[in-house]
């Protein structure tokens, strides 16, 4: 019991938390760099979208679905050659970011797609009637109008990534997941494992609350 709360262990938790945050935030940002445009593409090329291209929509949708059907733990192994090519290694937190992006980007593209589809078709029609180009409709109507929903989606995506980082712990991914596995699973230090789980739960809560707060702060639809 006591061994879980020594100064040394607090140092371990602190470092684990920082590593987890590093993986989560960097992979969330990189995933959005890929996922956001793919989500926009999926909405715009839809048969009811602003620039319908059915074959492209079907092709991209199909690839996204395939990527999403591969369980993260398998993807981790599957993309390891790519991981090695980019980071030079397959273990540690930086290496984990690569499979995290592979997994999160397609997921994020669907989350973004869903948010953008909530934008009222009438508003898009109004913008078209004012002579807005498709690019202007994306940047000045679709994205700003769905901002509250996009923020909630980002919280959801971030929380999903937190879950994945914990899973990556099993194969030396670093962060809180690795601590839980190394101390709790391999050395039967259950209390240490519970402490890391509590930290992860708190992290998830924090991101969810932050998402809800920011979403409602930026939402002008309420009185």
């Amino acid at each position: 019991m006591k061994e879980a709360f020594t100064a040394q262990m607090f140092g371990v938790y602190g470092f684990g938390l920082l590593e987890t945050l590093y993986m989560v935030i960097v992979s969330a940002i990189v995933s959005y760099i890929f996922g956001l445009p793919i989500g926009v593409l999926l909405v715009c090329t839809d048969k009811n979208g602003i620039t319908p291209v059915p074959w492209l929509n079907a092709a991209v949708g199909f690839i996204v679905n395939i990527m999403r059907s591969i369980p993260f733990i398998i993807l981790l192994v599957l993309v390891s050659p790519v991981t090695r090519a980019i980071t030079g290694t397959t273990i540690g937190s930086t290496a984990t970011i690569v499979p995290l992006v592979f997994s999160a980007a397609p997921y994020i593209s669907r989350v973004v797609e869903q948010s953008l589809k909530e934008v009222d078709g009438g508003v898009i029609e109004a913008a078209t009637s004012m002579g807005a180009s498709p690019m202007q409709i994306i940047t000045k109507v679709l994205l700003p109008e769905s901002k509250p929903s996009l923020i909630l989606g980002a919280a959801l995506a971030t929380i999903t990534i937190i879950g994945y980082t914990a899973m990556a712990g099993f194969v030396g991914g670093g962060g809180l997941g690795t601590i839980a596995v190394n101390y709790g699973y391999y050395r039967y230090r259950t209390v240490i494992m519970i402490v890391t789980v509590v930290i992860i739960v708190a992290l998830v809560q924090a991101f969810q609350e932050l998402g809800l707060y920011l979403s409602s702060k930026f939402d002008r639809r309420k009185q």
Partner: protein
Amino acid sequence: MNELIEIKNLGKVFETSSGNIVALSDINLSIRDGEIFGIIGLSGAGKSTLVRCINFLERPTSGTVIFDGKELNSLSEKELRLVRRRMGMIFQQFNLLAQRSALGNVTFPLEISGVSREKAAEKAMSLLHVVGLADRASSYPSQLSGGQKQRVAIARALASDPKVLLCDEATSALDPTTTRQILDLIAKINREMGITVVIITHEMKVIEQICDRVAIIDHSRIAELGDVSEIFTHPKSDIARQLIFPGGKLPDNFEGSARIRIIFDGKSSFEPVIANMVLECSVPVNIMFADTRDIGGKAVGQMVLQLPEAEQDRKRITAWLDLNRVNWNYEEEGGETAV
């Protein structure tokens, strides 16, 4: 007057999985510069598709639209976007950007046409003054009433200095008082800014309040077209009569006696015609149906009277009407009076 919009042999067919649907067929219309033109029809008649064909939100499948001398079919997407900036449009559901303030909504069309932020804000403010909402510039659409939202939408439609304002059921989501105020505003904009107005509606009272001319759309075609006062006094098509006298079917337990229809054409209705007739002829009549209204300062309308059985009483009435030059004719026996 010059023609601002010319619609020639326009047709629109929607291809659906369950077959083709003809939304519009062989539409020919000329909308004159500076007029308020109404397009009325029942739901599903094709009027909303027609207004969307005017600015090519819907591309017609046949025929063409000429706007201000430009044939829209021949334009590229880019040129079309420039033309659309000369046509403002407002909608039944207002379609404001929910995440932008009233001012932000009005600056939107200016931003997309590359006007600087300061100039856009300045112009938007002056337009909010025009629609009487300058004090609500920083309010968001969710904080505004329906009428206020439509005012913002009108200001937004005017921001790019359009030549025409297309109104798609713009008052259908509003209560009667607000409808009247919005129509007054549209009429004022037409008068003071010289902007041509095209109004799509299913309500005859909208047409009668502000339109100069009207086209009646029925089953994808134009059933009747002309000056509003002319169509009100002499509706020729069934659909026109149906729209002018909504639900005007008579109960049919008045068999046997003759009915006449009196048409008020703007002269006779300033006198108490019916009262004078009854007093002078000393013959009672039964008013079966009456509908008179004020259109552009002229009172017009129709009234259906049931006359007494006695032949001589009837003759006295008809003679009196002829003498006083009242426009009337016999109604067909047993037929539906109004429809």
